[in-house]
Every structure is written in C-alpha cells, then in structure tokens.
C-alpha cells in the first residue's frame, strides 16, 4: 500500500499490519471512550493510596496534589503507601505488633496455580482442537457438545462431588488437585477457541506439505501451529484472566498453604467487623492486577496480529 511513512510512523508509532488509520476526530473519540471505560479501575487505584477517612470523604477526593492550585483543596487527598505495606504485614488489633498476613505466599500461589494450569490446558486443548478439526471422529460434534456442557452447570453443583473425591484421594488443599481442576475448567473454552482458529486455516498448504513428504508431526508444528499463534496468545490470556480471578473452587478446595489471592481478598474484606477497609482492598486489587496486566500487555502484539501469514483463506 502506501510506501511513504505516515505522520505517526515518523513519531515512532509502529503501524499494525492490515489496519487502516484513524483521523484526528476518531483518535480523540477513542481516547475519550477508553478513559471513561477505564475510570472505575482508575478510581480503585486512586483509592489504594488513600486512608480510610479520605476514601469515605464527601465530596470525593480525586487528586493526589492540587496541581499548582488548579484543583480546590476539598478534592485533594494526601497519598500514602500505608495500604500497600499493610497488605503484607499489619497489626490485626489496634496497638498490637504488626504481623505477617501471608499475602506474599498467596500471590505466589495465584501465579503458580493459574500459570501452570493455563499452560497445561493450552497444550492439551490445542492438541484436542487440532484433532477435532483435522481428524474428525465419529460423532465429533457430540463430543464437542459434551465438552461444552461441562461448563453449563453452576459450579456449586459439581463442587460437592469434587470435594468428596479430593478428600478420599488426599488431593484436598494440595497444588496438583487445584491445578488439575483448573485445567479441566479451562479446557472447554480452549478447545472451542482453538478449533475455530484451526478451522479457519486452509488445508491446501497442509496437503501440499504432505505431498512433499512432511510427517504429520511436522505439518502440525511447522505449518499449523505458527499460523495460530495469535489464537494461542488470545486463549492463554483469556484462560489466565478467568483462572486468576476464580473464586468458588479456590475457596472450597485450597488449604492454608495453597490459598489464592481472591479467597484471601474476600477474607480481608470481611475481616475485622469494622466495615470494608477500602484502601486495603484497593491496594490488594491493584497489586493483584499488575501481573495479569503485564502478561496481557506483552502478548498484545500476538493478540492482534491476527492470522495474516499470507496463507490462502478458505
């Protein structure tokens, strides 16, 4: 297309492939909409720097500084890092010595459990999706539908047999138990999503490779997989986000050592009996958001590149 560098490319913004450019009006509009959409999250982040009295102030205090007198004093709060330190250690009763809350452990648990189960689901699910897409079994659609059915029941119904099962085999409160459970929890979406990506690929390229003597393994790894990297990234991000925030299974199936952040967060909300500690909860959520935010950010290029590898579309 256009060979001359555009204004944005001169400024150093990389141009995405296969995407047309927006004008000034559309750019401003998009920026405005995005900021409005982000506002509730921004308010959580702001709250994490406030003390309890300032979090409940009327009128609301939005700004950390007066911006050289531009903002009236009534809307300004004094930013503090106290909430962030008290995520990890705080005094549980007034006057008592600060105690460790164990949140460092909970953060590790969340990362380890979510990361390994999503990767496991991605490996198993991609293989299955490829199988469903390329080597249809007898009753292929029925299998796919049964797989989908496993996500339809409310979790509360499945959880009682799972609790009993885990107790019998000693998996209750252990890492392998919850990791396998989350793998199964992620599989339906992974399979359906990856199958839709594999279905989009043209079989002509694969057949040509087979005629040239490529083995089935080579066709899968060298031809099909590189074309669905965008799909893999998107599925990974979705799986990670869902698993990262899963609450019910984690509440009932993790022990003291394997507790994840959402469960601990819920306890921190309820704890103390003095109402919600807004600043503390906001600080936990802000810290908890960072890892998954970074992963999404770094996979974003793959996420949006799409399947534009110059292959023939069906």
């Amino acid at each position, binding site marked *: 297309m256009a060979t001359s560098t555009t204004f944005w490319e001169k400024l150093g913004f990389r141009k995405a492939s296969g995407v047309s*450019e927006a004008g000034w009006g559309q750019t401003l509009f998009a920026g405005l909409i995005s900021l409005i959409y982000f506002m509730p999250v921004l308010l959580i982040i702001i709250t994490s720097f406030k003390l309890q009295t300032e979090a409940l102030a009327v009128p609301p205090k939005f700004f950390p500084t007066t911006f050289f007198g531009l903002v009236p004093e009534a809307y300004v709060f004094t930013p503090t890092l106290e909430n962030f330190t008290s995520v990890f250690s705080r005094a549980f009763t007034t006057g008592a010595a600060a105690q460790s809350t164990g949140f460092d452990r909970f953060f590790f648990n969340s990362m380890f459990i979510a990361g390994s189960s999503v990767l496991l689901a991605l490996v198993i699910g991609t293989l*299955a999706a490829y199988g469903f897409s390329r080597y249809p079994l007898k009753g292929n659609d029925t299998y796919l539908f049964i797989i989908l059915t496993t996500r339809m029941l409310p979790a509360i119904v499945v959880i009682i047999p799972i609790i009993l099962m885990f107790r019998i085999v000693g998996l209750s409160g252990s890492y392998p138990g919850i990791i396998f459970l989350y793998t199964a929890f992620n599989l339906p979406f992974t399979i359906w999503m990856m199958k839709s990506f594999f279905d989009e690929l043209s079989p002509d390229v694969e057949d040509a490779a087979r005629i040239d003597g490529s083995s089935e393994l080579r066709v899968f790894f060298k031809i099909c997989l590189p074309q669905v990297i965008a*799909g893999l990234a998107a599925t990974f991000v979705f799986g990670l986000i869902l698993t990262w925030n899963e609450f019910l299974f984690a509440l009932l199936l993790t022990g003291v050592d394997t507790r994840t952040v959402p469960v601990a*967060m819920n306890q921190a909300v309820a704890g103390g009996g003095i109402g919600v500690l*807004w600043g503390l909860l906001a600080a936990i959520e802000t810290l908890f958001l960072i890892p998954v935010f970074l992963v999404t950010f770094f996979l974003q290029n793959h996420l949006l590149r799409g399947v534009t590898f110059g292959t023939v579309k069906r």
Partner: protein
Amino acid sequence: MTMTATQQQTPGFLNVAPDNWKLAIAVGLAVSTAAGSLLSASASFWVVGAMVAMVAASFVVYAYRRHYYGGLLVSPAIAVLFVMNIFPLLWSLGLSFYAYQSNQQSIRFVGLANYARLLTDDLKAPELWTNLTNTAMFTVLTVSAQMIVGFLLAIMFAKQFPLRRYLLILVLTPMMLSVVAVGVFFSYYYDPTFGLISQMVKSWNGEQFILFSSKTGAVAGIVLADAWMWSPFVMLLVLAGLVSVPKYLYEAASIDRVGSWRRFWTITFPYIRGLLMLALLFRTIEAFKMADLVILLTKGGNDTMTISYHVIRIANEQNKTSEGAALSYLMLFVVIVLTNLYLYIANRRSRET
C-alpha cells in the same frame, strides 16, 4: 502421500511391546487390585494412577503406529475432563435421586421425588418462577449489552491511531479484575451517602439518590457492572476477527466502489461471524450462571434473585445438596435445549452463506 507404515499386526498377548495394550490392561488390573487390597487408600490411588498412565501410554503407542491421530490427539483432553468434570457431574446427577444433606450422614434413595417436587409445588410458588424470569432477564440484558458495547469497541480499535496499544489495554483491564473487587467497589460507587454516582446525582438535583431502592435501579446497577466487566471479552474476540481480514479484499472492494454497508456484510462479517458466535455462546452460558455479582451487590434483595443464586442458597446455606442438584439439572436441561437450538441455527446459517 507417504504412508510408510503398512497396516501393522496387533502384537501377541504375551509379547512385551510398547503397543501391547491388552497386556498393559491385564498387568494394570492385577497390580491395581493387589495395591488396593494391600496398601492404604491414598497410596493405592497413586499406584492405580501409574497403572492407568501405563495403559494410556500403550494405547498412545498403539494408536500412533496405526495412524489413529484423531483419537490420539483428543484423548488427553477427554481424560482430564472425564476425571474432573464429567465424573463429578454424573455423581451429582446420582445425588439428585437421593435425599442427601451434606451436613448429615443419612442418605436415602427417593427416585424422582426431588424433581417431582420441584416441577409441581416449587414451580407453583412464585419465588422459583421469579428467579427463573430474573435469570432470563439478566441473561438477555447483560449479553446484549456486552455484545453491542464489545462490538462497538472492537470497531473503534480496528483502526490505527497513536497510543492504540496503551488505550486498548486500559479497556481490557475491567476483565482482569477479581469479581469480588468489582462487586465490592461497584457497591462503593453506588453507595447512597459517599458513593460517586449518588453524589453526582445529588449535586445535580439536590436529592439523595439510592440506586438500589427500586427493582429497575438494582437491575440496572447489576447489569452495568457485569456488562462493564465482560464487554472487553467480546471486544477482544471480535477484534481478533477484524484484524484477520486480508487487506486486499478491502482494496478490491474500494476499486469496485462497494458501499460501506455492503462491504461490512460481504467482507468483514464472514471473518468475525465464527468468533462472534463463540462470544455469544460463552457469554450466554456464563450469564445463565450469574450469581456472584448479585450476591455482592444486592444479596438478592429488591427481587434480583437468580436461579443460580437460588441453587447456592439451597445447596450451600441450607445444605440441601440433592435438591440443589436436581434444580441445577433442570436448569442444565433448559440450557442444553437452548444451546442446541442456537448451534442448529448457527450451523444452518453458515451452510446457507
């Protein structure tokens, strides 16, 4: 095609070969029975697990050598799903035919009595019926809001503009929040005295604004929080479809002077249809199960109970495990019928075009 391996013979029963699955099953059964009778329950679990792995490995080698790739690729997923999902599902299906309470030891077979009671007495009671209509209402409202907002956001981000990467990730963040935090913080924003929304309304008309004072307000509050949280999901799927449309198709269309409306339906839409359907399907299933935001925001007050919250109350708070299971199987039946209908229509449509 180079099919190097000819049709291989099944190895003899006593021949120790990696693809001799019959021998593997025999050895596995023998060792498992021995372990079951000699060792403790948790130790024998791992022995049985190892034996199952051995049998599975023999099947894998057997299938690979004979080019049964379909079954080979699908079986790990089926195995995990069977152990962790389908088996517990069947177990709870079994429980729904018993009178069982998780806080008591007694268990008694009652056949279809749980279902019969649900379909006759409880359905006549207005409570269950309103829970059902509430669920339908929430599903329609949240899913349509998510589809519309997500689709519009995707169209907005399908163009290149400065800071696009950064703005996109800002829009994606709601999805990454924990539902506990979303629920608690939306109740903070909706709070009648110090909540932001109430303060904004108060500065406008001077009256105290209580969002959850009416059913409309409560439903709107829940739908807003849910749609805000999950529209990015739809957006991401649609966007993945939008950027995968080859550019030369648009160029060809602009040479042929095709109008933008027709260009959308003939070029863009076929590329996003599959992903749009997938988003609709998964969001509908999730919306049908909606309970957490309702619990966090209204606790079912103001006539906002959903069927899933009702199941949680029965099964968890009142410990009526069997009744909860029976109710959710009725619910599953409804969802399966609806999903099948949807998939049937979707498949027929895609065959037509």
